[in-house]
């Protein structure tokens, strides 16, 4: 229990729900530099590696044997190993060294040397290096689309929306394993409804995953996990050779694959062998490279909270992403699993991949509400999409997404659900009902979806998997039943399998099925003015968030009475105990509401009523020559018989002024118009009348809001700009009369 209230409040903050530990190198709970980590070394004899990272060949374990035989480019290994790590590290950020030159050398490095190289970089240098070293020039993003009920209509609608929002890949999985073929089908149909060419996968057990691909239901797979120690690998029931074979098997069916690895998995399995997380990850990446996988998803993935508990954990995760890129591997850079309770910490971590850009910034952005994320992830989810879109616009960064409008989004969701209903009918599956479609369009998450007969559904899904029907049946049904565009997209996805260009590193499709990959869209970053630049139509698209409005548009009356004022000649200096209300040049003409939406008619009515409460006469004057509040009130007090004037700008900022005071001095100033209510204006009227009568007056205190400036500065600026546009420098002040019938 804290004695201090402040410590107590901090202790309850989200950040303190996260777990933090000191390092424990023997258990692998350290990012970098565990005592057991080897020092770099490499000896080659007769074209074979005979010593690697301090270990002679006859002591190599399974992983080391694999790496020595497959992963390291022997023709450059000696040259690269001889270069000082610090020099290699500098090449990573040196814009004068082309990416290809760096890649050539990195191909010859051992795991220990790779880790030594990245350990020389600070976090900003790592981001610079990732920007330069990632495979594809154009950054992209991947979505997770799943739901707790395995509702097919909702999967289709969500996949459609994810594709429509710009995700280049969509990954789904299952709650119940036997739903796999259905979920893959729903996400395929949905994705091609939202945007042609989006790649899809269904993460399930390997044999099932391969069968789905063979039926034409998925286009890629990334469930090929690798580990950095023999024991962890074997616990995962695989070896580098079994995973490597699987990689070839997928490619033989025209399916793109990427491996999965990530810091912390070995420690979690208690098989870290006293090595640091980053060293073990370097081994994983060399296995990935050696097996010929075009890429990897890493960045700790589901173990992310482990590195985040350690010193240097977040930068270490950025380092593992960079290691993948250094090895010329496509990298989907994590950010999928829950990394923190703290929104501040989550956002900060995201920046390390978001700012430099990566092949896939997320290896699964939860485009559905996290309660429906069956990967157990959702570090950012559907609720955070607007935040993400604003971040893109703030930083002028292409995070792979685009702003969308609600109406068009709902249309896309409906079409996807309806298209899937047609496909279900063609396959003879239990029907997708109208009620399901409606809920899939507008509902929040799977609890909103009507329940289906699970037993009947699973039986149908199993028959489908075992039977002869393929995705081509779906294509025909869609073409025949009013969805020819979706049919064409799915057909084209299948045709691309035959061409195989999308098997090349970091490949995605555009909506026209052009392949963007390390071959067709190679990263050519060479410093400012090169590489991917967010410009032109794409930048305009990112700028155009629906919340942004045109500040040039007139600020129309939203509610309340429009003030109608009549001019009755030039204002003269008055006499007697009057109070002049001096208004700005746009008051009641171009502008009709204050910054916090009070109708100017009502504001004026309250000022007049307040003055009348004290039995004092009021005169209304419009000042044209200035929009400045000090000058408006100065002019008013000059004209006022009592010398007392209320100056008010159209945005509602108000001052009580007395003749003889300097323009910037005053009796009472109400500078935060957003804090003023109609009651306040009435009391301002009374106080002004009190000054005119020469009575002692208690100044009106208005509360201060720390957020007022944040909330109102834009509107204040716009309103003041409109008022200033109405300034006529040579026009004398005019007396105003409220039109008869304009009740204020």
């Amino acid at each position: 229990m804290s004695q201090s209230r402040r410590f107590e409040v901090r202790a309850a903050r989200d950040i303190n729900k996260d777990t933090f530990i000191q390092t424990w190198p023997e258990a692998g709970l350290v990012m970098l530099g565990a005592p057991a980590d080897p020092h770099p070394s490499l000896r080659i004899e007769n074209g074979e590696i005979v010593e690697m990272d301090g270990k002679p060949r006859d002591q190599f374990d399974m992983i080391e044997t694999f790496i020595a035989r497959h992963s390291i480019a022997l023709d450059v290994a000696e040259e690269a190993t001889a270069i000082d790590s610090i020099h290699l590290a500098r090449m990573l950020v040196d814009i004068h060294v082309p990416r290809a030159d760096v890649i050539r050398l990195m191909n010859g490095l051992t795991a220990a040397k790779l880790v030594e190289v990245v350990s020389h970089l600070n976090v900003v240098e790592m981001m610079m290096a990732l920007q330069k070293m990632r495979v594809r020039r154009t950054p992209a993003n991947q979505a997770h689309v799943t739901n707790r009920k395995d509702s097919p209509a909702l999967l289709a609608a969500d996949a459609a929306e994810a594709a429509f929002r710009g995700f280049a890949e969509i990954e789904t999985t299952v709650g119940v394993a036997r739903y796999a073929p259905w979920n893959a089908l729903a996400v395929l149909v949905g994705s091609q409804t939202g945007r042609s060419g989006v790649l899809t996968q269904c993460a399930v057990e390997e044999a099932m995953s391969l069968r789905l691909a063979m039926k034409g239901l998925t286009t890629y797979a990334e469930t090929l996990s690798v580990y950095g120690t023999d024991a962890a690998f074997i616990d995962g029931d695989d070896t580098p050779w079994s995973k490597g074979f699987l990689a070839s098997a997928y490619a033989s069916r025209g399916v793109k694959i990427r491996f999965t690895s990530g810091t912390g998995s070995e420690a979690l399995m208690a098989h870290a062998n006293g090595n640091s997380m980053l060293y073990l990850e370097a081994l994983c990446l060399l296995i990935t490279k050696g097996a010929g996988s075009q890429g990897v998803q890493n960045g700790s993935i589901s173990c992310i909270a482990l590195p985040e508990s350690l010193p240097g954990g977040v930068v270490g995760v950025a380092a593992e992403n960079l290691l993948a890129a250094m090895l010329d591997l496509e990298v989907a850079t994590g950010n999928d699993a829950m990394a923190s309770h703290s929104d501040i910490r989550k956002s900060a971590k995201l920046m390390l991949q978001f700012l430099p850009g990566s092949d896939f910034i997320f290896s699964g952005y939860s485009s559905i509400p996290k309660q429906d994320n069956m990967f157990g992830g959702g570090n950012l989810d559907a609720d955070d999409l607007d935040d993400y879109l604003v971040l893109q616009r703030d930083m002028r960064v292409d995070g792979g997404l685009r702003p969308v409008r609600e109406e068009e989004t709902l249309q896309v969701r409906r079409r996807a659900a309806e298209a899937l209903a047609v496909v279900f009918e063609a396959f003879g599956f239990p029907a997708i009902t109208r009620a399901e479609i409606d809920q899939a369009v507008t509902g929040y998450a799977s609890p909103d979806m009507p329940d289906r007969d699970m037993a009947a559904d699973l039986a149908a899904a199993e028959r489908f998997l075992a039977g002869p029907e393929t995705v081509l049946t779906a294509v025909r049904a869609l073409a025949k039943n009013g969805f020819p565009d979706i049919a064409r997209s799915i057909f084209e996805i299948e045709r691309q399998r035959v061409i195989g260009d999308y098997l090349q590193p970091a490949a995605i499709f555009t909506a026209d099925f052009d392949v963007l990959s390390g071959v067709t869209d190679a990263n050519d970053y060479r410093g400012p003015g090169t590489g991917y630049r967010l410009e032109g139509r794409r930048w305009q698209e990112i700028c155009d968030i629906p919340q942004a409005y045109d500040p040039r548009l007139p600020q129309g009356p939203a509610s309340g009475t429009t003030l109608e004022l009549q001019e009755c000649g030039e204002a003269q200096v008055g006499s007697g105990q009057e109070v002049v209300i001096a208004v700005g040049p746009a008051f009641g003409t171009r502008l009709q509401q204050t910054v916090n939406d009070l109708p100017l008619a009502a504001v004026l009515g309250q000022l007049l009523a307040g003055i009348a409460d004290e039995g004092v006469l009021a005169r209304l004057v419009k000042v044209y020559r200035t929009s400045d509040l000090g000058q408006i009130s100065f002019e008013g007090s000059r004209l006022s018989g009592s010398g007392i004037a209320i100056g008010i700008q159209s945005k509602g900022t108000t001052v009580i002024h007395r003749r003889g005071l300097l323009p910037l001095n005053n009796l009472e100033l109400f500078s935060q118009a957003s804090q003023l209510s109609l009651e306040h204006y009435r009391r301002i009227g009374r106080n002004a009348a009190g000054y005119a009568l020469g009575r002692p007056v208690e100044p009106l205190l208005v509360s201060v809001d720390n957020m007022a400036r944040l909330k109102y500065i834009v509107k204040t600026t716009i309103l003041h700009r409109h008022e200033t546009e109405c300034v006529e420098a040579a026009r004398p002040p005019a007396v105003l009369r409220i039109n008869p019938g304009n009740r204020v």
Partner: protein
Amino acid sequence: MSADRRITSKTGVPVEDLTLERVNSGWGDMTDFSIARETLVHQAGVAAVGGRRQVAENFRRAAELVNVPDDIILRIYDALRPFRSTHSQLTILAAQLKLQFHATECARWVEEAAEVYARRGLLKTGEGAGP
């Protein structure tokens, strides 16, 4: 990239003849939409030119697997998992790949696994010793 070469599906259908209209008229099955051995060999060449030796090797192994039936593929994968196979079982699989499917690179892959598994004790219990 694909314009300057003639691509056919595994069943020999030129990629230009794979049309939605034909599919809608009832033609075709998934084998017509399967990648051909030559196409993967071509992709291997593209990868090699780009300096991606291992990716190229993977595509070459994939090319060899095009004509290997799904069930045999799944069986080989399973056999390569730890403690699933004896040394001679892996050797027989390698021979089958070589002789029946002309998959020499894949055969070499399986033989290498057999050798390493024997040395690292990853073979099916009962046969610990290597060749």
